[in-house]
């Protein structure tokens, strides 16, 4: 038998049919949907007079376009209300489980999947959302799809996909204190650029990921798409199995034993070939922050923004445009820059460990007067746990505002927008122009850095304050 990568092992067992010289027909084990990218897929289905082929394999939630206050009231914004209601109607009509607003399982689609045990090793998982890559943390092939593909999955439980190339990113060694999974992934993207992994599926390997918690691994896999990768995955191990054991939709009893013996075969064989391999060293990684308008524009928090002269000539126009948008000068240091907003949340860093990290830092401190600090838990369950653990109390005492679960200011589809020209340090994943609201200036960082910034009122190194 030839040596196989983890990716190949999963892919190959899901190919229903191979079109000569074309894409593979890939069977999808788990399909997650939300209100924004599904309505047109359902209407397409209806136009063709089809029903959902395997409704039990699809799970829905409302997250992108929901308010984060007064979720018990009807949604104010008419279009948003219509869209969320449409999801409810579609799910009811087609027999799809929906964790809608006010359901104890509601939350950001990539937070609830793992939390409920819907996400399991060896699965193929898709969702009409690019950060579906998050689920790769469990050793599954998980990737974002467009609405036409959502329709394909609803209609046939399959999609057509060209097999991507494979890349392995290894990070060896031990991370320094206060260097977090978010810093690791921001570092990797800054090294290989926002398009450095386009066309590839990435496997993360090495000591750093082996030592990471499941939530940390999710943060890393989540941002795979920000370097262009189709997805990212990490071989499942004891950490994965411990996390899954007992989760509501994880296998139980005999099924668990059977699943476990399969999951234990999910790793890249020793001689497996990757199309591309990159190795980094943990000792090179420090707390990171972005200064520009794509996630590849990251630097060490103690570092300086590059000078125009250091940028390749054909990239200078884009770079200058970015600097102008951010209101930064070439070559400037980032430490000490004033900040107006701190946003803690999103499918990258809106989990309980993230909230714990923030609470541990701010306990007994107060946020700076110039800062508006929002904490948006990734799901109802995260919210509940944060209340039970006393985290909410600590954060509110420090002057942070707790909101209700949803995507919120990560993409600013609802009212949670950063005003034009204001600076936000955000634990989310995208710093594109206008991502957090028209004219908003986003700097991506870890929850720990964001907490330190909230207290200091400006950019600070979380290790020295």
């Amino acid at each position, binding site marked *: 038998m030839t040596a196989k990568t983890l990716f190949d092992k999963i892919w190959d067992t899901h190919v229903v049919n191979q079109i000569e010289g074309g894409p593979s027909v890939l069977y999808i084990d788990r399909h997650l949907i939300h209100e924004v990218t599904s309505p047109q897929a359902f209407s397409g289905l209806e136009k063709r007079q089809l029903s959902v082929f395997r409704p039990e394999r699809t799970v829905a939630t409302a997250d992108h376009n929901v308010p984060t206050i007064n979720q018990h009231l009807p949604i104010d914004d008419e279009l948003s209300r219509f869209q969320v209601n449409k999801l409810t109607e579609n799910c009811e009509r087609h027999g799809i489980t929906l964790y809608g607003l006010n359901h104890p399982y509601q939350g950001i689609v990539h937070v609830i999947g793992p939390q409920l045990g819907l996400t399991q090793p060896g699965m193929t998982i898709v969702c009409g959302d690019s950060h579906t890559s998050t689920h790769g943390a469990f050793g599954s092939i998980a990737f974002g799809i467009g609405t036409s593909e959502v329709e394909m999955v609803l209609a046939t439980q399959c*999609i057509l996909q060209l097999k991507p190339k494979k890349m392995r990113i290894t990070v060896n060694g031990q991370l320094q204190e206060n260097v977090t999974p978010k810093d690791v992934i921001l570092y990797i993207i800054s090294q290989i650029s926002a398009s450095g992994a*386009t066309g590839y599926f990435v496997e993360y390997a090495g000591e750093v990921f082996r030592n990471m918690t499941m939530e940390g691994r999710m943060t890393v896999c989540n941002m795979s798409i920000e370097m262009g990768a189709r997805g990212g995955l990490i071989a499942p191990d004891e950490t994965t199995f411990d996390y899954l054991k007992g989760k509501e939709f994880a296998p139980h009893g005999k099924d668990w034993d059977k699943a476990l013996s399969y999951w234990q075969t999910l790793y890249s064989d020793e001689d497996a070939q990757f199309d591309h391999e990159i190795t980094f060293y943990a000792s090179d990684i420090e707390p990171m922050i972005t200064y520009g308008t794509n996630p590849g524009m990251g630097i060490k928090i103690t570092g300086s923004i590059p000078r125009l002269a250091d940028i390749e000539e054909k990239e200078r126009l884009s770079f200058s445009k970015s600097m102008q948008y951010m209101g930064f000068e070439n070559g400037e240091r980032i430490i000490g820059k004033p900040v107006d907003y701190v946003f803690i949340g999103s499918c990258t860093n809106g989990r309980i460990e993230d909230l714990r990290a923030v609470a541990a830092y701010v306990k007994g401190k107060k946020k700076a007067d110039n800062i508006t600090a929002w904490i948006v838990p990734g799901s109802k369950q995260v919210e509940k746990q944060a209340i039970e653990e006393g985290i909410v109390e600590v954060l509110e005492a420090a002057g942070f505002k707790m909101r209700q679960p949803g995507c919120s200011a990560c993409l600013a589809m609802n009212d949670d927008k950063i005003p034009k020209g204001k600076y936000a340090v955000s634990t989310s994943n995208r710093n594109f122009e*206008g991502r957090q609201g*028209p004219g908003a200036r986003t700097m991506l960082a870890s929850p720990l850095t964001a907490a330190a910034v909230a207290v200091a009122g400006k950019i600070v190194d979380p290790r020295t304050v």
Partner: protein
Amino acid sequence: MALNKISTLRTTAVPLPIENVDTDQIIPARFLKATTREGFGKNLFRDWRYDNNDQPIQDFVLNNPTYSGEILVAGKNFGCGSSREHAAWAIEDYGFKVVISSFFADIFKSNALNNGVLPITVSEAVLQTIFTAIENNPKATFFVDLPNQTLLIEATGEAVPFEINPYKKECLINGYDDIDYLLSIKSKIEAFEAAKV
């Protein structure tokens, strides 16, 4: 359901020499509340195209009457970011049939193909040639020949070959869509399911 067919096309092009044009620029999130596929073209590049008072920003290329055509030419890594197919719908609805760049984000590329928009990847050097051709003459024309997989830069006479998956090429030329194909192999899918458990 039938897609727009593309076979050959002679047209002028609109230059957007910016890199990493992400889907939040192509169609900002606040326009994703619609539940139909139509009408996104009017908000294509909304925040680059209109100011806060909804007035056209004169120096943005879509507001410049000098440039027109059914091809959009953009810098490296076009369509990065979210999986929103609304980006492809906006481009198609605005009237572009082809997008040329030196590099496309994966999801955008498949969304474009699923909506009858042809993404053409060219080398950095060719991309520069195209930008220069348009700069020298905004009315410069290009001839896209999908059956022969070539892009003719008529200003220079250069015929540039491009790659496209043969299956996807057939779909575009004939207006086929993937769901029709998947439905046609439903018995295979059922057999796969039966064998899996």
